[in-house]
């Protein structure tokens, strides 16, 4: 089943969204989404690494011996993560400090190794780049949605600017680890409800057509 190029890109945002559909990359999703700025920063960093590693893995897929391909992919990913680490420390030190240990932990982000193994290792360079862009964009958008909810309701701010007015009492819990779990769980439940509704509609449509 060959997808069009546009579908390769949009699947990462919708039907194969890495956080909400594939349930990968949970650690940064809950840890850095305490503010929109951090969520966006992490999303962009991970997208950069994903793009570069998908490109390289797709380029070398012909000459990599299958038995040791995973360690080789890991080295490729780790190289780009090290580059990202150093660039971030030099040009965005506040973000680097806010993200803490989750910058080097991008290397064990299941999304990146997962796409290298499942897609870039078996597809051409152009499709791998588009796939990486799509997955990275989906990851970033998901992080921003999570971070936006947590920052607005848990801090009364968005991107550091107060948006909720004077009389708003922020729900501090949402900024804490427990809040991350709750927001994620409720979002997943909402998504599942929507899925069940779509499936039910499709069933009634199929019966009506008979």
């Amino acid at each position, binding site marked *: 089943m060959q997808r069009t190029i546009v579908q390769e890109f949009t699947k990462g945002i919708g039907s194969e969204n890495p956080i909400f559909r594939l*349930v990968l990359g949970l650690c940064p999703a809950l840890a850095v989404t305490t503010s929109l700025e951090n969520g966006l920063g992490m999303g962009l960093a991970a997208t950069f690494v994903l793009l570069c590693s998908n490109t390289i893995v797709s380029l070398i897929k012909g000459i990599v011996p299958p038995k040791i391909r995973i*360690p080789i992919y890991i080295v490729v990913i780790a190289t780009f993560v090290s580059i990202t680490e150093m660039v971030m420390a030099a040009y965005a030190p506040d973000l680097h400090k806010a993200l803490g*240990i989750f910058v080097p932990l991008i290397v064990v982000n299941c999304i990146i190794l997962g796409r290298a193994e499942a897609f870039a290792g078996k597809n051409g360079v152009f499709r791998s780049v588009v796939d990486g862009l799509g997955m990275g964009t989906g990851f970033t958008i998901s992080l921003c949605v999570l971070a936006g909810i947590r920052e607005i309701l848990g801090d009364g701010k968005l991107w550091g600017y107060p948006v909720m007015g004077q009389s708003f009492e922020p729900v501090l819990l949402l900024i804490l680890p427990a809040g991350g779990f709750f927001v994620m769980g409720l979002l997943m439940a909402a998504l599942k409800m929507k899925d069940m509704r779509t499936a039910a509609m499709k069933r009634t449509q199929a019966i009506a057509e008979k």
Partner: protein
Amino acid sequence: MDIKIIFLIIIYSILIQNFVLSRFLGLCPFFGCSQKLSSAVGMGLAVIFVMVLASSITWILYTYLLDPATSVMGFLATDGVAPDLTFLRTIAFILVIASLVQFIEMFLQKKVPPLYRALGIFLPLITTNCAVLGVAVLNIDGFSAIGLDGKLTFLQSLVQGFAGGVGFLMVLVLMAGLREKLELETIPESMKGIPVAFIMGGLMAIAFMGFSGLSI
């Protein structure tokens, strides 16, 4: 006092700053491996083993090869001062962890096949467990909550690896117990599976927050 620091590391790593519920490390196996108590226990014990070994090997590698202050690579530079290779930390650590897990896999497959079959796909997944690489990096970055601002000593790193793993095992077992009980209850269809697991994780996180006021 050295014994007090060791004790503090243990208490903090297991309770006050639990690796899963406070630091957000090891979430994928926390939600993926916790449906049954037996697989949770197996995964937790394997992770403790890997975390202790990874802590020790990465510490030795960092201290004697990468860190210019204590490196033995002085012969590489013209002025006798070892080169600062700390930027290779991420690559070196993840390679160590990947090789370690590979060796353990091969060893188990040959010597203890039932355990190898029981762990199944979860053993190679320990490579991408944030907790393993996380503890290796935490050993180098220091533990500011208890006043250790620089790199931990070898013994302290071992203890943090072990205690972090124990904390991970404990939380995994708790979650597995809860989820097994939940199988017998009626919950809304849209909450079944992952969503209710997240809610339970959140409740556990709130419970563990109670330890944060602990002052020793």
